[in-house]
């Protein structure tokens, strides 16, 4: 990225602060580069002398043993190993917090795919992060059923409570499939709801302390509401 662009976006080439928070948090805008483009360096000339990244060389690319084992276990589940791309990227993301160039290279090395292919896959899916994010995933469902029950206010409250803590990845997310506990939040993959505005400080404190989040409101403990679903 050239120097003028950096000045426009902020610091160090990579967008920081609110810009890293995904869909529409805080400032509510996706990062914009020169000319209003969403793509950094869109108007930089292509370097025709440079070859695209090839499949990493196993002799020079260091992959941690446990990550390699995990990715290979995923690959073994499928007739075509390429199917393991998403689970492998997820495994690498878990280790590196987001899909860093290093994470991508490690997955590419084990799966024998080009880094470009994996970046394309990672870019498609909402749960694979291609920019730096915080460690704790806080996905607030703001889709129709939840927003009918106050999810937008909840989202604002969560953002306010967390502030600009770099440890958090707060996003308003598509329907998470738990409209019975609307408004709900997925905290590091644990579904909790209904979350009242007053619950937010407790919840954030629990995440910070590494405790179980709102144990009484977790979906896993919810009983069926169907009167016909008799339980013996």
């Amino acid at each position: 990225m050239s120097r003028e662009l950096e000045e426009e976006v902020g610091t160090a080439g990579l967008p920081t602060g609110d810009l890293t928070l995904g869909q529409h948090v805080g400032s509510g805008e996706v990062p914009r580069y020169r000319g209003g483009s969403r793509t950094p360096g869109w108007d930089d000339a292509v370097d025709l002398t440079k070859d695209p990244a090839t499949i990493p060389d196993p002799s020079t690319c260091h992959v941690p043993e446990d990550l390699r084992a995990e990715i290979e276990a995923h690959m073994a589940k499928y007739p075509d190993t390429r199917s393991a791309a998403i689970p492998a990227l997820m495994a690498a993301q878990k280790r590196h917090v987001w899909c860093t160039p290093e994470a991508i290279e490690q997955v590419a090395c084990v799966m024998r795919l080009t880094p470009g292919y994996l970046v394309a896959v990672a870019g498609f899916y909402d749960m694979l992060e291609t920019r730096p994010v915080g460690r704790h995933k806080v996905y607030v469902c703001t889709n129709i059923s939840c927003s009918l029950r106050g999810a937008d206010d909840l989202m604002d409250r969560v953002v306010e409570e967390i502030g600009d803590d770099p440890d958090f990845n707060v996003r308003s997310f598509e329907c998470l499939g738990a409209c019975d506990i609307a408004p709900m939040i997925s905290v590091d993959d644990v579904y909790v709801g209904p979350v009242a505005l007053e619950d937010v400080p407790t919840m954030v404190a629990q995440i910070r302390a590494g405790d179980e989040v709102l144990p009484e409101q977790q979906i896993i403990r919810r009983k069926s509401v169907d009167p016909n679903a008799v339980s013996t």
Partner: protein
Amino acid sequence: MSSAILFKDIDQPGLNTLAVYRERGGYGDVLRKGLSMPREALVTELVNSGLRGRGGAGFSMGKKASFMPKGTMDKYLVCNADESEPGTFKDRELMTKSPHMLIEGMILGAYAAGATRAFIYIRGEYAQMADILDDAVAEAYDAGLLGNNILGTDHSLELAVHRGAGAYICGEETALLDSLEGKRGNPRLKPPFPANQGLYQGPTLINNVETLATIPHVLGMGADEYAKIGVENSTGTKLISVSGHVKRPGNYEIELGMSARDIIYGLCGGIEGDLEVKLWFPGGSSSPVLTKDDLDLAYDFDTLAKAGSMLGSGAIIVVDEETSVVDVCLKLAKFYKHESCGKCTPCREGTQWTVKMLERIKSGQATPMDLDIMASVQEQITGHCLCVLGDAMAMPVGSMIAKFRPEFEAYIEEARQRSDAELIASLDAPNEAPLVGSLV
């Protein structure tokens, strides 16, 4: 009111373990009977039961299985557990509480389809549920219910749980297959249909969680007996997810043909604050909306189709009279804009422009003519794309404009007056900061 089939004793502690599931008759005579039947007989049984796909399209499950070609090539069964349709959460409860019911259904489904490999494609957000499924699959493998020669028969099945990573489009069957192959989840052109050329180019049967979980029950009670539940063309029970402004949101198992009023006012206890219904989505956010005049319709596939909507995934979203239809419409459009994969222009651009126009309405920059333009955009999306994601926005948005036009027009007028008043106030106000910078 029906007796529960899928939800019977769903809250029994430990139902997610093999031991308790077996105690309740799981993996027993039904599975043995199914695997000892000739394949064709099993398919015929499924056709006769009238079981229709529970994922959205409502296609006959037995017929879909019968489309699988004969021959010894690799065939696949894929369970669609992506469940990302807004308002739908029935499969989640089923998989969390009774994962073995799904696995038993998949063993039988795979046998009917002639498949020896099966995958459960579960959305990445359902990590807790995927863990439960993983455990259940491991238990089933240990008990010899998966793997080679199940229960001493010739039938073998390898089952794996595949987690997605968050994309609504991957609930569409061909996009799901691409995603399962490790690619970006873009839909494919149909035909060829997955039954002929699906996963890894092999014949593939794709069914929803609830559909597959119903198979053991169909076999257990017999197709004719199962077909007696419900109404003609919509047999059996259906899990419905009711959400929005109702007093008791949640999953309910109903006999198809029950009236919507009985569901919303009976099972769910009515509307919060005892308000009236303004509109309701009968089958997820992709279904054209219905109003309070349609509450007496029978909740089944054909009746809803006749009323210009659809049963879809069985997700009822109820919106009360105090909520603005413009807000609902914008929320909906924004979701589809975000989820459009971008492959087909009508969907990519149409969802984009619908959001822009709705935002213009909200900010007071629109005229009633914009409603016609918006409606025409919806028409141009419908039927012009590889998959139905665009249609899934066009149908509800189109139906909202058609059914609530006076409200849209009133909103436009009100917003326009508000923005005019703001503009005038800002012009009248003494300018603390001069508009034209520091040119002087």
